[in-house]
């Protein structure tokens, strides 16, 4: 690992996930790191990136940092506020979302996500919040990016305790007669590195964060993580990116904890 870093783990994740977002795409994102990533991308490399909130708000122009996906500030001055049936039925299931951003408590080898329980479903050791819209995002967004604050063997597990949001690989195997639109998880980012799904659906190490070695990432993963032939090194956050985050996007450090 690197010596002294001049940015926090949250700042690193916000900056490096912002760089993953291509311009002129429609992104479905929750609150927290994705909020920062989208705002930073819009302020830098992807000015025409469109953000869609689960609450039905599209084309939000908030004058403050929203604290929930249904914050009053995203409604004031928004381009549209759609009903929930329109949002989930027509916008998401109808195929208008290119990229979904999801988090999870666990992710496994083929990109299945768990946000439901740790332990058995009927006698959980930890009851998590549940799907929310994640099951819809995984099925219907063109592809899904996952950003996780923790990269350790308890989070990156060989098999998740519960599949809340199924990978394309698992969906095709278990439910072959269901036509799933989305590619599922294609990209996973942590403060150690970037993983992408290979042709057989298994996650592969594609890049490491600055100052991290492939061995560090493999050691922090709960299965034998396959590494691609050439592993890139993600450039560290620049002064300009950090300045935007700290002074204009999240000056009160609501999500930069």
């Amino acid at each position, binding site marked *: 690992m690197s010596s002294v870093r001049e940015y926090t783990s949250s700042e690193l994740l916000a900056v490096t996930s912002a760089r993953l977002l291509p311009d002129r795409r429609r992104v479905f994102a929750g609150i927290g790191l994705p909020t920062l990533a989208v705002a930073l991308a819009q302020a830098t490399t992807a000015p025409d990136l469109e953000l869609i909130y689960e609450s039905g708000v599209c084309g939000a122009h908030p004058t403050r940092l929203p604290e929930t996906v249904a914050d009053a500030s995203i*409604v004031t001055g928004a381009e549209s506020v759609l009903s929930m049936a329109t949002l*989930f039925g027509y916008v998401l299931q109808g195929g208008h979302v290119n990229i979904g951003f999801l988090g999870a408590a666990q992710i496994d080898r083929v990109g299945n996500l768990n946000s439901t329980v740790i332990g058995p479903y009927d006698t959980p050791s930890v009851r998590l919040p549940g*799907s*929310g819209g994640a099951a819809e995002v995984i099925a219907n967004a063109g592809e899904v990016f996952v950003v996780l604050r923790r990269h350790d063997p308890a989070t990156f597990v060989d098999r998740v305790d519960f599949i809340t949001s199924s990978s394309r690989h698992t969906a095709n195997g278990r439910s072959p007669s269901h036509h799933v639109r989305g590619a599922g998880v294609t990209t996973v980012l942590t403060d150690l590195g970037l993983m992408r799904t290979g042709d057989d659906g298994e996650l592969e190490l594609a890049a490491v964060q600055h100052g991290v070695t492939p061995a560090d990432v493999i050691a922090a993963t709960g299965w034998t993580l396959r590494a691609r032939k050439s592993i890139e090194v993600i450039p560290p956050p620049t002064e300009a990116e950090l300045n935007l985050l700290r002074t204009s996007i999240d000056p009160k450090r609501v999500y930069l904890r």
Partner: protein
Amino acid sequence: MAQAKTTLLRDAIAEHVHDGDTVALEGFTHLIPFAAGHELIRQRRRDLHLVRMTPDILFDQLIAAGVARHVTFSFAGSSVGSLHAFRRALESGAVSYDEYSHYGLLARYQAGAAGLPFFPIKSYAGSDLVDNNPSIRAMRSPFPESMGEDVYVVPPIHPDVAIVHAQRADRHGNIQAWGITGPMQEVTFASKRTIVLVEEIVEDELIRADPNRTVIPSFVVDAVVQVPYGAHPSFVQGRYDRDNGFYRNWPAISKDPARLQAWLDEWILGTTDHTEYLAKLGADYFAPLTPVPALSGAVDYGCVA
């Protein structure tokens, strides 16, 4: 237009909500009918099957007060962390539950509202939710264009009572809401009885000057109650903002069962109604939560006379 349906919150709950009922309280972060939940606690309703997409602090309070027997939900978190009373009840088995994704539960409301035997959605392929909820079932398309394609379907839900909150209504119960409306229309049409809390009961002419704003027509409303600030600590667009301080402080209260009971004793059981709850918050409490106005431009609904 029907007769006036205006009543008091205490009377609406006493008349329409009975022990053992299935009660849906909706509002997606915005317009959460907290005052009605508090009144359910004061009237010591028991054995309710509570339904709500996002349980939020409201269900933490209701469960801690012993109101619930079963919950149906799709996302049980809050913006600031765990709902501890909710989690304790689910982990210990004290309250039983069934869960969906957001669209899955919305689809149950849609089926209920539209009188359908089921509603299809394209979620759940590969998900363990299917194996743990017998109400999510696969079904094959009967049409040649999609021959052999399966979708998952969910059954209708018909709550005994729907309770929602809105900005305004006329005395007949034509309900106008704006901003994020969540599943309020679907849940109302799906339910046998409906209670609506509003910030303000207004003259008929004001409602009729903007009929597209009416989300719920009077004929599916049984009681309409004026309860200013009745959605606190959630928010009402254009009226008062979300009390994020309350939300941030809640996990520390709810984590400790004794502290949570003391909170309920002081703030809910220790107040006779919502007016007293507001008085306890203090006269200037909402000053920092008062929005900067952002009025809509008026639209023209005119026609040739």
